[in-house]
């Protein structure tokens, strides 16, 4: 005999966290990207630095707008280019990131709300 009450409660408990924060469930690639972001990007892009010549822009909801803070189109290709080559006072990360790292980082940036 199926105990429906218990089944429904279990399912709710399983899926409720996802309902509360839809972006909490990241794919493997996005999780890797989050790790890269926390370790390499957050230091500049999450904290204001009053002494810096140019303030690093926030990267939250980056892909929700048509353009990036620089004015370039908000595409994966453009964001990847910026990460690799740097831009203005942002250093280049071509030595630091492999191609897969850039892909994972861009994947995570799509989820960064």
């Amino acid at each position, binding site marked *: 005999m199926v105990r429906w009450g218990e089944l429904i409660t279990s399912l709710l408990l399983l899926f409720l966290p996802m309902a509360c924060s839809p972006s909490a469930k990241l794919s493997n690639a996005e999780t890797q990207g989050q790790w890269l972001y926390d370790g390499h990007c957050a*230091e500049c892009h999450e904290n204001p630095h009053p*002494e*810096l*010549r*140019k303030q690093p822009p926030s990267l939250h909801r980056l892909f929700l707008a048509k353009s990036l803070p620089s004015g370039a189109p908000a595409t994966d290709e453009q964001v990847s280019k910026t990460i690799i080559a740097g831009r203005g*006072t942002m*250093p280049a990360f071509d*030595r*630091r990131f492999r191609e897969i790292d850039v892909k994972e980082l861009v994947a995570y940036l799509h989820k960064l709300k």
Partner: protein
Amino acid sequence: MHSATPRSQFKALGTFALLLLLTVFVGCNRTRKYPLQGEVVAKNAATNEITVKHGDIPGFMPAMAMPYHVKDPAVVQELQPGDKIAAEGFVSKDGNDYWLEDVRITNDTGRSQAKTPVAPHMLIPGEPVPNVTLVNQDGRTIHLSDFAGQALLVTFIYTRCPMPNFCPRLSSQFAKIHDELKKNPGDYAKTHLLTISFDPKYDNPAVLRKYGLAYLDDDASGFAHWDFASTNPTDLAHLAQAFGLQYEEEGDQIAHNMSIVLIAPDGTVARFWTTDWTWTELMESMQQALHSRGQK
């Protein structure tokens, strides 16, 4: 060439001890520091000591030969009897310990260029800076001596630096100095900024130009006042030793300290900074250097 006999050494030590006792008695009860120039007469690698024969140090001690402790074993290894050296001599508060720091070989053996000790040995203010060759953001060869007659502020970065409190902040603050000096044509003409990369493999002229333009708000005319340059690894190591810069590749990054040097119009070191500075202090020091000693 050990010219001091044990007896004369004992006598010298005794004289020194007496003088020291007098000094201490008179109330000078702290670590004393004095510039020392002399000749190495002996060394003991096992105890990290060198015996130095030096001239009178006015008001402190007469000419004598005596042993000094040297912290860095690489320095003791490098030195040979007969070498002429300049150093900072230290005597401890209680007069029991005496040692040398910032030891520099001053005779022309060729060894001082080929095999200098690993630890950086900074120049003393007043000493002339080495005249190394650099290549700037325009691909043009420049020398430190090109800026004779100007107050020159030098620092070191690498363009790939991801630490906001290090190179990005340093360049941002240099940009503020540049902007402020630009307001006064007289000061602008007599000052210059020089940012040198310790990553010459990556930071070629094109990369340096792009980096410089970012801090000059895309105004290339600013390069006339602020050069971004790199040099070959040998000259870079030479500059690093002279200016107290330390850098080491760690994977894809370079671990480094901060070094800012003010060079007076006469080409001598005026002042050093590492971490404790503000951009206004740097700028004011440049302006002061224009109006004090060393101006041609």
